[in-house]
């Protein structure tokens, strides 16, 4: 079980904080993308092709794609957060054992 610990207490705590921030921010970004917020237009990867034909639906589809990317990244951060949390707990246990 000792080999499961691969980072020190500070790195694990940083990872935990980063994951919490990542989950919240990426989830909110995902929501804003799937509701087609106009302010985020610069972040949508559209090209000239998308403006031919059903322009509005094309752009909405791209918005949704980016939104789903954000949600998947948020889920990945949930995983990283869980990993960091385990590392934090293992580090605390190791500290108690030494003393």
């Amino acid at each position: 079980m000792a080999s499961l610990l691969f980072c020190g207490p500070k790195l694990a705590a940083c990872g935990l904080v980063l994951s919490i921030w990542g989950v919240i921010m990426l989830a909110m970004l995902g929501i804003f993308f799937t509701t087609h917020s106009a302010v985020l237009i610069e972040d949508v990867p559209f090209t000239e092709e998308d403006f031919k034909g059903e322009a509005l639906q094309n752009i909405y589809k791209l918005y949704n794609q980016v939104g789903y990317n954000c949600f998947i990244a948020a889920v990945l951060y949930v995983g990283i957060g869980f990993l960091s949390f385990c590392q934090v707990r293992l580090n605390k246990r190791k500290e108690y054992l030494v003393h």
Partner: protein
Amino acid sequence: MSSLFRSEEMCLVQLFFQTESAHNCISELGHLGLVQFKDLNPGVAAFQRRFVKEVKKCEEMERILRYLEKEMVKSNIVIAATKEKEMVPCARDVLELESTFEKLEQELREINRNHAALRQNLIELMDIDSLLRMTEDFFEEAESLLTYSEPPSEDSVSMTVSSHITSRRNSNSSTSGALHLSFIAGVIKQERFPAFEKVLWRLFHGNFVLRHTEMQATEELQAVRGAVKKDVFIIFVQGDHVREKIRKVCEGFRASLYSCPKTLYERKQMSNSVMTQMEDLRMILRRTEEYRAGVLTRAAEHVQEWGSKVKKMKAIYYTLNLCNIDITQKLIVAEIWCPVSDLTLVQSALIKGSEQSGSSVTPVLNRIQTQQTPPTFNRTNTFTEGFQAIIDAYGVGTYLEINPAPYTIVTFPFLFAVMFGDCGHGLVMTLFAVWVISQAESLRKWKNELTDVVIGGRYIILLMGMFSIYTGLIYNDCFSKSFNIFGSSWCVRPMFHAHGPWQNETLHEYHHLQLNPFVPGVYSGDPYVFGIDPVWNIASNKLSFLNSFKMKMSVILGVSHMLFGVALSLVNFVHFRKFQDIFLQFVPQLIFMLSLFGYLIFLILYKWCITLRSETAPSILLLFINMMLFDYQSEHVLLYRGQKGVQIFLVLTAVLMVPVLLLVKPFLIYRTRMKTRHQVFRNNLNDQHGTDTRSSYSQHQKDEMVSMGDIFVYQAIHTIEFCLGCISNTTSYLRLWALSLAHAELSEVLWRMVLQVGLKISSGMGSLMLVVLFAAFAVLTVTVLLIMEGLSAFLHALRLHWVEFQNKFYEGSGYKFTPLSFDSLLKTQQ
């Protein structure tokens, strides 16, 4: 009444108490932490004071305690923390403590000495042991050399004698028959071995055999002696006086020589005895270490308690040195500064102290009047402490001067937030501050200077974060993106055909198009409910709009801040009853500032309120410059009717205030001096009592110590500083605009260059890239935008307070009230 508005009223109090109750009384006052002892023997040097021996004793005890603590840390013994308030020992207990400490120190030093000696013995025995083991091979070899005279085989032992030397010796041995070889064995440091070999070579021209091996470093050896590498060597030589020479050479190279028995049987016996000796030594060493650990553990339980006792005693003796002891040696006189509102507390503490010491006489408090300036004391709690500290860092306020701290609690975080203005970053900062506040006690244990600064300013950071969220909502900026909560007031669709000039083809022809607010429907007529309209976030001329807005806002905030500072000077004048100064300084300053910069604010606000076409609108800066230069040419557009007259009047008023500031006050001082001098002369002529008038005349001359020239110069400097300072200080407030622009742009660059790259990848790998890029974005946000920009905005907001705001009213020439307080003593020295 204690409040943060003004520093507390202090009084000088004389204390009389008995010598026996001195310790207890002073310790009670120390626990109270409200009195500052004045030095009644200022001319006496430190080593001439009465209690200097006792102070030295305390310092000696502190030294012993430090030594003990170091030893405990070396042996990894935990020092228990004590929390109860210990009673300060009286003089008898001091002696007892002192003897305990000395005994402990002696014991510990002896243990350490013995330990070192034992260890040295162990090292020697280990050397002998490995020597015996290694030289087995050499002896066998030597015997084979004697009997067989063939060249020695090359094995793991390194050859240091070249082959032709061997052959020479072999030839020697073959001619002279049986040889008697004696040997010298020893241990030398590996790095010295080559030099050693060379010297031997030069001395004896190869008439010797030298064998050496590196000593195997076992773990135990390494633990005992460290990582020094040593070699075992053995020299075989002929003749005895050669031995003496070699012995001297070995001494020179600091090789330790050991006598080695000649026969195998003796060597085995010696090896066995060395083994048993080593076992014994190891056991003794272990016992010594256990004993030492026991002594230290027993001491560790009390060491903190002792430490705080010693510190308190030292503080008490130091304080006693400041007091006067009267002739009968029974009474101690002390003078203390103390807040008027706390006199009863001080009295009850003294009574408690004298009761504890069992003396019958209660101490006497005698309040005396004095001309000396008392120290400045501002009563703060944990929240206001930080803000008071940043005011005091510039200068402690003069006694009874108005304290800028309560206003700083609001204006400082606000000015910071104007420069920081991002609600996402503000939220992160607020959460960080909340965490530091909740963990303040455990973070203090880190004892790092940087963390101490952060912990001291935790409430400041909290307020800065909360205000930043507010200004972030006003700038509508959250990690460089805007929120559209209330619906934008601008609409693009009416620009197209039927209402407006655009067609579908217009979109293909032009890269940039401008929304025209005069086309009906494009601008709804009502501005966005709260803050900047979110449409500006995606407009390409965002910066021209925001720059103009932020610059004007900075000027408005700056002039208001400075006017507030000038108004505070009025409060000071009223308190100190300098009514003359109100009319000669406050009123002209206010008029000067209002007529020039107040009018500037009026122009800004007026221009914002009326409707203008942007092509023909006059620039406020040009209007202001022309106003000062009296430049009114007919083609210049003015904002309202009658502007020319109003402006000429205002400029003339301002210019008129300058000689008022410059000349009137010195002139009045000159006139009063002339009058008193005539008065004194007349008294001198009329009266016949020469001595009285001469003394009163010299008194007046003493009052006139500052000459008239100095007064004029001082007033001129003050006037120029104020008038020119008005302009430069107003411009200085433009840093509010500059820093908020820098922050917004940095934030946008970070989003665009880091996070947007991940968002724009539309394939499946997009989420993985997003994970990595988000981590980079977060780290860069924290380091660059929060820490770097935060420090920068903090510094600039601080400068605006210290220079532009406080030079309108703050003198800051007082000295801080430093009471005798055991709590702060123990906290700072921990």
